[in-house]
């Protein structure tokens, strides 16, 4: 009895076993591509809904209301949970403020005020806390802090506040809306002099800020609310930090997926083409065209499915780790990585892609006449691109190099695919390096990013230092290691023809070196009479460089200032100018503005700060090293690095596969070359040269493309977000930054081609020729 399926299966299994390297290559490429695809999906999903997902999982509070405990009873506040429109509520929790709290272990710098709540457990219907380290409080004497351990704040440490009992830190937890800075047991809060009550709400209607305010007003009608916070404000603050970076992630994720798809297409179609002689044998045995097609599909799908499963597992883990990192970077309790739906989507996409990539060549294999298939390799081929090969053979280049350079032109389609993979690899590396630079520049663009040491009033010193700003400037400038000194403050101002609520960043002293490279138009101000507003302010009010504004601080004289430039900033109420425009606001009597210092090259900021502390502590001042808030920069740098590596590895596998196919197809030629005296090293050199040439071309194409994509993405982000993008954030490429991807192109090509080239060089000549 005929058993065609078992024959197909037997032939496929034999093919898989016979071509182990090819099988492993397909499995690895598919695994890597699936992992990349799933990682990309997870990245895009997380970047679109990072906050919302975390908020939903934690059942975050849509509104947090604070009440004065002296004016309203806990019972009345608790009754608001049953008000109309409230779907869930938690509290009331007693609250207290730990003033000038500091870690007893000796946390340097000033202490800080912490708002703590008395809460029995981290769960509940609203604002479920995620414990990131340690455990929840079990009784008096313990505290759980918001966030994660860091510096002197660690599990087991203690926290003290003047006049209050010392508390042991037993854990860290995160509230998605940051409902408190710490939590103690309800039995403990009484000893901390509580003065408030906190209630957390979720409402039936809370789509936007006005809805939240209306719902809250209805719920707390008749009660004296001393403060409230809407989740919309928290979400906006998060989006301000995060959304600027979403386009970068999107483009990079999409690029990774495109490379994966191309590599799969190359490897799978190549695997089928490489087995033409096998096809002839099958047909000679009596396999029908449909059976031959089936054999090839099964041969490819077997390792592909195994690779896909491994890739889904790896991608899921990677996406989870990435989401966890992002949550950590943005102080969220948690984030979704890959879901089962994403797993299925990525796995399904890859399987379909593999099947489509294999189907064309497999159908071609089925239709191939047996005689033509069985004679593949034994008869002379009528090849392509022979003109260039002939020309190269006549040059003075060493024979292996000349022959190697000629190989790519013999198979233009395969060369195009390998070149695409290499080009995209280089594009990804170029784009990744550029985005890394851009994000770094964005994160350190403000003056704080350029400041080494900050000098200000000591937290437990006299009410105000006796020294004036000018005296402190003079003292600091006399110190060795001081390069530049300035003071900076925020001032509420009003502008004629502009809405209320403008915030002026006023600078005094030697401020020019502190101003970042976030200038979008014009130039920085150089003295009084000039102003640099945010780009969003200019756009919103249709102002231009050269226009004049009249600004007035509270109770101060008006100042006429000319717009000389604009800086990148999404806040449409921001402007920067010299503090001398508002002489009344200067701290002439007693220091009140913090002072920033840039130290000279070679001076350690920590040593400098210690010296200044020793010098000025008697005057009620302290100095501390400035640690710029890099926020999620580390997360993004990690992402760019990881994706660049994945893309480059995938490109390297594409190269490996290309050389593998070339070596298989040209095994007879390689045998002949060795028979006429080519050494194994020369054979390897020939194969590597063929890909190194493509690596060079890939770099030549990929670098300009990467730069162009980077510029387009950053520029577009600037247009889409109100803040704009500074020219220096767009034009980030120095020659050395371009040299790296150029080397990457060659490196990918050489590393990818080395293993199969070495294998080809080691093939026994006698075996190859006997096979003929």
């Amino acid at each position, binding site marked *: 009895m005929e058993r065609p399926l078992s024959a197909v299966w037997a032939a496929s299994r034999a093919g898989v076993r016979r071509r182990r390297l090819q099988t492993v290559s397909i499995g690895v490429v598919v695994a890597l591509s699936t992992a990349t695809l799933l990682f990309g999906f997870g990245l895009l999903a997380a970047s679109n809904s990072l906050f919302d997902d975390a908020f939903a999982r934690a059942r975050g509070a849509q509104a947090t209301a604070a009440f004065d405990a002296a004016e309203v009873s806990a019972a009345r506040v608790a009754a608001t949970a049953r008000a109309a429109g409230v779907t869930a509520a938690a509290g009331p929790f007693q609250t207290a403020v730990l003033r000038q709290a500091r870690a007893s272990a000796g946390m340097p710098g000033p202490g800080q005020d912490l708002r703590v709540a008395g809460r029995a457990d981290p769960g509940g219907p609203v604002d479920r806390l995620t414990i990131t380290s340690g455990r929840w409080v079990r009784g008096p004497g313990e505290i759980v802090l918001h966030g994660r351990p860091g510096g002197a704040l660690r599990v087991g440490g203690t926290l003290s506040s003047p006049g209050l009992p010392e508390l042991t830190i037993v854990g860290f937890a995160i509230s998605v809306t940051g409902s408190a800075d710490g939590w103690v047991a309800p039995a403990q809060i009484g000893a901390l002099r509580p003065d408030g009550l906190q209630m957390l709400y979720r409402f039936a209607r809370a789509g936007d800020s006005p809805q939240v305010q209306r719902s809250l007003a209805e719920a707390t009608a008749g009660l004296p609310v001393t403060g409230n916070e809407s989740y919309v404000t928290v979400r906006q603050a998060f989006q301000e930090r995060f959304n600027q970076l979403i386009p970068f992630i999107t483009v990079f994720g999409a690029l990774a997926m495109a490379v994966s798809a191309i590599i799969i297409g190359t490897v799978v179609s190549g695997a089928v083409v490489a087995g033409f002689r096998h096809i002839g044998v099958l047909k000679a045995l009596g396999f029908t065209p449909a059976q031959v097609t089936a054999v090839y599909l099964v041969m490819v799908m077997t390792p592909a499915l195994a690779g896909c499963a491994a890739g889904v597992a790896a991608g899921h883990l990677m996406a989870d780790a990435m989401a966890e990192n992002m949550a950590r970077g943005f102080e969220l309790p948690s984030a979704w990585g890959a879901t089962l739906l994403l797993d299925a989507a990525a796995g399904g996409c890859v399987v379909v892609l593999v099947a489509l990539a294999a189907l064309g060549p497999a159908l071609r294999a089925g239709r191939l006449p047996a005689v033509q298939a069985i004679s593949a390799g034994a008869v002379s081929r009528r090849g392509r691109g*022979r003109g260039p090969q002939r020309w190269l053979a006549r040059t003075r280049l060493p024979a292996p190099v000349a022959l190697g350079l000629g190989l790519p032109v013999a198979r233009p389609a395969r060369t195009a695919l390998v070149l695409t993979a290499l080009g995209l690899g280089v594009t990804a590396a170029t784009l990744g390096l550029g985005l890394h630079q851009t994000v770094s520049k964005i994160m350190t663009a403000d003056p704080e990013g350029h400041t080494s040491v900050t000098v200000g009033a000591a937290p437990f010193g006299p009410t105000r230092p006796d020294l004036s700003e000018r005296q402190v400037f003079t003292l600091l400038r006399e110190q060795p290691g001081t390069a530049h000194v300035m003071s900076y403050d925020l001032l509420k101002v009003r502008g004629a023809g502009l809405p209320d609520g403008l915030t002026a960043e006023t600078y005094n002293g030697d401020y020019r070196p502190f101003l970042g490279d976030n200038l979008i138009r014009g130039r920085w101000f150089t003295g009084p009479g000039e102003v640099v507003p945010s780009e969003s302010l200019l756009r919103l009010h249709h102002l231009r460089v050269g226009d004049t504004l009249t600004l007035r601080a509270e109770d101060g004289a008006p100042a006429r200032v000319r717009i000389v430039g604009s800086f990148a900033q999404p806040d449409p109420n921001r402007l920067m100018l010299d503090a001398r425009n508002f002489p009344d606001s200067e701290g002439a009597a007693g220091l009140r503005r913090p002072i920033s210092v840039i130290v000279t090259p070679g001076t350690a900021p920590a040593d400098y700060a210690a010296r200044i502390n020793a010098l000025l502590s008697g005057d009620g001042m302290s100095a501390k090293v400035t640690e710029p808030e890099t926020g999620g920069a580390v997360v993004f740098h990690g992402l760019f690095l990881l994706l660049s590596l994945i893309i480059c590895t995938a490109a390297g596998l594409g190269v490996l596969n290309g050389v593998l196919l070339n070596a298989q197809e040209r095994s007879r030629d390689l045998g002949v070359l*060795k028979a006429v005296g080519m050494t194994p090293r020369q054979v390897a050199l020939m194969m590597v040269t063929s890909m190194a040439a493509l690596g060079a071309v890939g770099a030549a194409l990929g670098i300009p493309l990467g730069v162009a994509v980077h510029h387009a993405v950053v520029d577009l982000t600037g247009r889409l977000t109100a803040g704009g993008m500074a020219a220096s954030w767009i034009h980030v490429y120095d020659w050395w930054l371009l040299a790296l991807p150029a080397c990457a192109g060659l490196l990918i090509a050489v590393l990818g081609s080395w293993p199969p080239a070495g294998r080809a060089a080691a093939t026994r000549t006698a075996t190859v020729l006997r096979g003929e």
Partner: protein
Amino acid sequence: MDEHADTVVRLASVHKTYGDVVALGGVTLRIRRGEAVAVMGPSGSGKSTLLNMVAGLDRPTCGSVVVDGEDLTGMGESALARFRRRRIGMVFQFFNLLDDLPALENVALAGRLVGMPPRKARARALELLDRLGIADRQGAYPAVLSGGERQRVGVARALMNRPALLLADEPTGALDSRTGDQVVDLLLDLNRTGQTLLLVTHDERLATRCATRLVEFTDGRIVRETEPNRSRPWSVR
């Protein structure tokens, strides 16, 4: 004449096994300069293995192989490749030309491997093609050459570096009888001008026409050596 200088190939008790299969079972053979030796035997008798040993494409399990004064037994892959490119010329049954290079470049390539400048290599290749009567086909690619023309290009490539020994593995096996005869004539002419020849063939007619000595193989051993009725070469190079 000095016996060493007169000997091109010396095999002493050469054994070759592939797993349990004995391909050569203690072969001792000496080929003198200018000789044309034909190795005959049924399929699987060890003829091709012997050829591979002499060409340095395979190594003996034990015994020694000395070709043109060089002991191949201890040589590494690279040294064997360098030895091959200068001392050995190989002619294959299926020609084994590089499909992407025209006839002239196929021949010149062997010269390029020994460091010959491109112009000089092409001049030498053209001289050989002319000598073999296919100079007019110098620009043609293998796919458009006839079987006989391809084999002539193969012979020209083998002669490019003036090898001490020309190895031919079934050189007429893929040719029709008329073209095969032409190739035999070519080999005869080469031998008559002093080229040492080691020929592996099934074809008794070819062997007796071409060879000055017949070596018959069975099961990896030499079972008979005869001298057919062919005149010795007129001169030794």
